C-alpha cells in the first residue's frame, strides 16, 4: 500500500528527478558554501552580492530607493509590453488606440494609468536615489565608476520618459515634443541635424511618432537593462552600499 501523499515527500521526490538536477546542480543550499555556490552559479543572481552587511539592509541606509526604482522599471516593462498589444505607432491611429485603452479595452485604463504613474514615480525615485547617494558621499572611491553608470541611467530614464510622452499623440504630446526638439536644435553646429534625424523630418509627424516608439520600446529599454546589470554588479564589486554608523543596527 502506498504511503499517504505529503508535500515534503513530493518535493524530495522532485529533487531527485533528472530535470531538476540538470537545472539546480548544486543541491539544497544548506551550508554557507552551497548557498554561495547557488548564487555564483545563477545568471540572475551572480551579479548580486553573496553576503550583505546587516547595516546595509536598514531602511535608513538606502530607503530602498534603488531597489524600488528597479521594481518600478520591471512593472513598466510588463505593463508596457501589454500596452503594445493594442497600440499602433501611426497617426491618427495612435490617439484612437490610446482612447480605446482608456474606454474600451478591459482593464486598459488600469494598465495605462499604472504605466503612466509608475513612469512618473520612477523619475522621481531615480532623482531621489541620486540625491541620497550624493549627500552620503556614495560617489567617492571606490564607487566613482558606479556613480557615472548611475548618471547614465538617470539620462536613460529621462529619455524613456520623454519618448513615452509623444506616444498618446494628443495635443500635450505634440507640443511637448515640438518644444523639446526645438531645445535640441539650439545645440551649436549639429543641433538642426540632430533634430531632423530624431524627428525624421522638419516637424513632429508620423516619422517622429514611429522613431520615438522604437526608441521607447526597444532601444532605450535595452540600454537600461544593460546599464542596470552593470550597476548592480558594480555594487557587489565595490563592496556593497555605503553605510554609516548613524544608519542603526549592529556595526559590522
Amino acid at each position: 500500500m502506498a504511503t499517504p501523499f505529503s508535500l515534503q515527500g513530493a518535493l524530495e521526490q522532485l529533487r531527485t528527478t533528472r530535470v531538476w538536477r540538470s537545472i539546480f546542480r548544486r543541491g539544497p543550499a544548506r551550508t554557507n558554501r552551497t548557498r554561495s555556490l547557488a548564487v555564483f552559479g545563477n545568471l540572475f543572481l551572480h551579479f548580486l552580492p553573496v553576503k550583505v552587511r546587516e547595516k546595509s539592509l536598514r531602511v535608513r541606509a538606502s530607503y530602498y530607493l534603488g531597489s524600488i526604482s528597479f521594481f518600478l522599471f520591471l512593472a513598466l516593462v510588463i505593463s508596457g509590453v501589454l500596452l503594445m498589444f493594442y497600440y499602433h505607432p501611426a497617426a491618427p491611429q495612435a490617439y484612437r488606440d490610446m482612447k480605446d485603452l482608456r474606454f474600451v479595452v478591459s482593464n486598459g485604463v488600469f494598465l495605462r494609468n499604472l504605466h503612466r504613474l509608475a513612469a512618473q514615480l520612477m523619475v522621481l525615485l531615480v532623482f531621489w536615489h541620486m540625491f541620497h547617494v550624493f549627500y552620503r558621499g556614495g560617489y567617492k572611491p571606490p564607487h566613482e565608476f558606479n556613480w557615472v553608470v548611475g548618471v547614465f541611467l538617470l539620462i536613460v530614464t529621462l529619455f524613456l520618459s520623454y519618448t513615452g510622452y509623444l506616444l498618446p499623440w494628443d495635443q500635450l504630446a505634440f507640443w511637448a515634443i515640438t518644444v523639446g526638439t526645438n531645445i535640441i536644435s539650439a545645440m551649436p553646429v549639429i543641433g538642426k541635424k540632430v533634430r531632423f534625424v530624431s524627428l525624421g523630418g522638419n516637424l513632429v509627424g508620423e516619422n517622429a511618432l514611429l522613431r520615438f516608439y522604437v526608441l521607447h520600446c526597444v532601444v532605450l529599454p535595452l540600454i537600461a537593462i544593460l546599464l542596470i546589470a552593470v550597476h548592480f554588479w558594480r555594487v557587489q564589486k565595490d563592496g556593497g552600499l555605503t553605510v554609516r554608523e548613524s544608519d542603526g543596527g549592529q556595526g559590522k
Partner: protein
Amino acid sequence: MSETKKSSDGKNGPAASSKPGATRREFLNEVATGALGIAGLGSMVVTYRFLSPNVLFEPPTTFRAGSPDLYPLNSVTYLQDQQVYIVRTDQGFYAVSAVCTHLGCITQWKPEFEQIWCPCHGSKFRLDGTKIEGPAPRPLPHFSISLTADGELQVDKLEVLPLGQVLKV
C-alpha cells in the same frame, strides 16, 4: 605609414631588425585595427544617412491665401492651417509667421493690445514681428508674399523677407 616607421626603427637600432616576426605581427595588427576603424566609421556614416529621410510627406511650404479683397484694410487675419498672419496696412500686404522663434509654440494676435503673444513662455511681439519682451531670440520672420497670375495672394514660407518689405496691390 606604419611600415616606414618600422623600417626607420630598424635603421636606428638593431633590436627591431633582430625580431622581424614581431614587426610583421605589429604591422598586421595595425592594418587590421585601421581597417576595422574605417569600417566602423563608415557604418556610422551610412547609418546616419539611412536615418535621414530623403523623401518627406510634409505639407507644402507655399500656399495660396485667396484674393486680396478678402482682407479688409488695416486688418490682421490668422490662417490657422498655415500658422501665418496676413496683415494688410495702408502700405500693402505682409505675411508674419505665427510660430514663436523661441521654442516653436503658436502665438496669438491680441487685438486689444495690438500685440502678438506667445502662450508658452510669454514672449510678446509687435505686429511687424519685432520683439517687445520675453525669451524669443529673433523677431517673427516675414515670409515672401506675391500675387499669382490669376490675382491671388501666394505665400512662400521658405523665403524670408527683410522687415518693411510689403506687397502693394
